[in-house]
Each structure stands twice: as structure tokens, then as C-alpha cells.
């Protein structure tokens, strides 16, 4: 069955307009990324193609694309709305990136914008789980030879994999406790500080269910709603050269499943004589009004 592109686009258009307006209100500028980028190992996702014996990625992950284009000049506040390909599968995403030297401020700002954009969309029943890769790395410092298995266990939340490791029982317990740590506070300064600075009941410290994507440096977060079976977004902090970035991406198609579209009645209805009505409409638009032309 083919998708109803017109009706879906109407919803996505409404969501995109709201998201774009929130990002702009926070002082972010839209970045228009080329759809086709030259192949680079640091470029994530995209549809890999060859053209005239060169390798390219079509619509790759924008965060990695922005990171590769970054030269200097902090702070950078950018956002994007576009389709992202993973092979031939595409999803429409809205994302935001904040690069600055203050690694606490960028996380606080990004998480506040995240909450504000979901509130603007009237999605109140969302949660943001905040985890930390650094806490995991520190915990397994003394058993580094098992890092690969432990991160595999973390990705799948697989207690049996940890059970099978040849490590002392107290270490296993420490890892199990981390996997089961999900609360308002977690006893780790960097996450608890974020919880204090962003005092929102929908934020959770969670060290066991946030997907540990490899390009994030430390703090990672996952956004979800009980009404959707998948995370509706994800984000985290990363390094670009010597600078720090933090950002998130929202899956607009999943958000569309829970978004209640509101009729925009802020239009001036214009009708009547063909010439006169369009002249009037032009004047109204020039003055900043929105017009809806009669059928």
C-alpha cells in the first residue's frame, strides 16, 4: 500500500513549522546541507553510491556532516530539517547542534530546547532518559579487556552476557546495578548536576536503557513517549576536533503519530473579483498577514 503523501505531508508541514519556529526563537540558524557528500569514514548513514569512480553518501547523518564541515569560530548554533537516508530507508528529522567550549552550558541549553520544542508541539507525555558513556568507561577501566562484550551487553541490556564474563562477582554486581540504574538522581555528579539545572520531572538519569551510539563522547539521551513503540529522538555530546558539541535529532514521522494537528485560523479570507482579490492579497502578505484565497 502506498503512503498517503499528501495527508502525511500536511502533518509534517505543521510539525516542521512549529519546530523551526522554536529553534529560531532560541537563536539558532538553519543550515542547508548538500544532499550528496563525498565519502568519508566519519560520515554516518546515507545511501552509499559511486559516480564516475568516486564514492559518495546521499543524505547522510547531518551531525557528522556538520562536524566534517566545521572549521572554527565558536559558538555555533545550527539546526536542520531534512530527510536522512540509511541505505534506501529514509526518515524525516529535525535536529539541532550547539558547539561551544562550555560543556555544561551546551548540554543544559540543548536539553532545555528539546523540552521546549516538545511542549510547543503540545506533546506533554514525553520522557528524556539521560545516560553517560564516561561512567561506563570508568567503571570498566580495570576490566578493559571485556569492553567490547560489556558495551554489547549495554546495547542489548543483556544481563546474561555480563553473567558469562570471567570477572569477580562484585564487579558483575556493579555492572548489573548500572544497567538497572534509572531514577531522578543517580549519584554521579555530572548527571545529577544536569538534573538540578534542568528541573523537569520528565528527565531521568538512566544508565541502562539509553542506546550507546559510538560517535557520542559522554552524555547521551533518548527521548520517548509511552504512546510510541520507538524512541522519538536521541542526542548527546560529541567532540569535533578540539571543540565540544551537543545536539539532538527528532524523528518527525514518529512525532507525527502523536501530534494533534491544530487548524490555523489566523488567515485573512480573500475572495471576489479575480484581479482585485489577488491585488488585495498581495498587499496583505506584504504587511505580514497570512491569506487564504477563495476556491
Amino acid at each position: 500500500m502506498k503512503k498517503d503523501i499528501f495527508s502525511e505531508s500536511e502533518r509534517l508541514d505543521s510539525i516542521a513549522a512549529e519546530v523551526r519556529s522554536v529553534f529560531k526563537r532560541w537563536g539558532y540558524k538553519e543550515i542547508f546541507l548538500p544532499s550528496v557528500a563525498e565519502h568519508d569514514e566519519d560520515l554516518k548513514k546515507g545511501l552509499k553510491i559511486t559516480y564516475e569512480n568516486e564514492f559518495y553518501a546521499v543524505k547522510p547523518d547531518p551531525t557528522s556532516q556538520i562536524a566534517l564541515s566545521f572549521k572554527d569560530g565558536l559558538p555555533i548554533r545550527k539546526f536542520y530539517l531534512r530527510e536522512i537516508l540509511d541505505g534506501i530507508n529514509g526518515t524525516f528529522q529535525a535536529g539541532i547542534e550547539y558547539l561551544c567550549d562550555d560543556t555544561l552550558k551546551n548540554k543544559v541549553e540543548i536539553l532545555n530546547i528539546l523540552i521546549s520544542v516538545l511542549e510547543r508541539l503540545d506533546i506533554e507525555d514525553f520522557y528524556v532518559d539521560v545516560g553517560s558513556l564516561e561512567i561506563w568507561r570508568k567503571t570498566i577501566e580495570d576490566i578493559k579487556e571485556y569492553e567490547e562484550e560489556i558495551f554489547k551487553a549495554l546495547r542489548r541490556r543483556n544481563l546474561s552476557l555480563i553473567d558469562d564474563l570471567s570477572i569477580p562477582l562484585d564487579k558483575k554486581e556493579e555492572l548489573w546495578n548500572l544497567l538497572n540504574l534509572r531514577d531522578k538522581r543517580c549519584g554521579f555528579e555530572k548527571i545529577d548536576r544536569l538534573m538540578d539545572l534542568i528541573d523537569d520531572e520528565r528527565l531521568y538519569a538512566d544508565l541502562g536503557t539509553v542506546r550507546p551510539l559510538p560517535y557520542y563522547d559522554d552524555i547521551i539521551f533518548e527521548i520517548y513517549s509511552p504512546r510510541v513503540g520507538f524512541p522519538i529522538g536521541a542526542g548527546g555530546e560529541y567532540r569535533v576536533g578540539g571543540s565540544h558539541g551537543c545536539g539532538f535529532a527528532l524523528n518527525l514521522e514518529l512525532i507525527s503519530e502523536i501530534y494533534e494537528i491544530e487548524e490555523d485560523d489566523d488567515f485573512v479570507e480573500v475572495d471576489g473579483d479575480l484581479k482585485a482579490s489577488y491585488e488585495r492579497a498581495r498587499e496583505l502578505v506584504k504587511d505580514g498577514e497570512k491569506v487564504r484565497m477563495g476556491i
Partner: protein
Amino acid sequence: MDLSIALPKGRLMDNTMKYLKEAGIDLDLKKNRELVQSVDGNKVVLSKPSDVPVYVEHGIDIGIAGSDVLEERKSDVFVPIELDFGRCRLSVAVPEEKDVSVEDFEGYTIATEYPNLTSEYFEEMNISIKIVGLDGSVEVAPRISIADAIVDIVETGRTLKANDLVEIEKIMDVSALFMVNRISQKVRFEEINELVEKLKEV
């Protein structure tokens, strides 16, 4: 518990029901052909084992199926525990009269229900093969000359023997897995953790 549960029809079903019962979920399923049943407030979906991970990924709270189908489907689900049943292996088998190893498979045609795992396995070995995707009774393929070898589940080896095939290489060990939807794990954190604890004790 008010959960949605995907259960695998077929060889894993009896042990699955036993495990769940011992963990406190006693599902008295109707013996008719209803594939979605309401049982004590739970919604039970009876599905092909290979579809269980897909259902769980797409919003069913929990499910049980083999690690073979999860790896084949690449479903994004949590797997808190491996269960102590459904143990078998995914293996490469060839007709008895063939004296070959997998290193000799360049250009071979392989029949399988696991096209992704099979191509990954041979890609890693840098061996180019052709896959014939089948949905059951893969052992027939070499006998009617549409494939040179098969990749399939081997439990006792009796089916292979009955079809004049011999196992030459194991690709992976397989066991039943308890799967949890990523969002259900977050939203019903305590409840699902308690269930996992009980399953661990079975």
C-alpha cells in the same frame, strides 16, 4: 500484568509456556486458531518465531524467540536474558558425498531461511556466494540440485542425516531469548525487571 506478549508457535512454544508459568505468568491459551488472544488482562500474539522480534520492536512489550531469528531480523530490542532452552546451532551443511570445507564455497549456491546471516558470514570470509531464500524444508534444495549447500538450524542432526547431508561448519550457537521492547523497558521498568528476575530463577 496487562502486558502484550509475542509467543513463537512451533518447537519453542511448550518450553516458553513452561518458563512463563514458572515466572508467574500462567497463560491459559484457547486451543482454537485465534492468533491474538486476551488472557488474564494480557494480550497474547501467537506468531511465526521469525516475526516475534519484529512484533517486539514495533511495540509488543515482551516476546520469546530464538537468537537466530533476532540476529537475522536485526530487530532493535532489548534482550535481558538468554533462556535455558531451544539450544541448537546455525550451521552449514553439504551433501554427504561432497568433500569440501566452507573455504571452497566460492561461487556456491546456498539455500537458507537466513539470507542475512549467511551473506554476512561468507562476506566476512571474502567468499562470494549466491543465496536461494527458502521458507522451510531447506534440506530439499541440494537433493533437487537448486543449491550446493544449505545454512540451517541443526538440533540433533537427524534431519540432515535423513536427507543425506552433513554438517561441516557452525555459524552460531542458538538459544531462546527473552526480548523486551525498548520503550516498554523504560515505561514499565520495575515490572519488567521483576519478571526478568523471576525468569532468571527458573
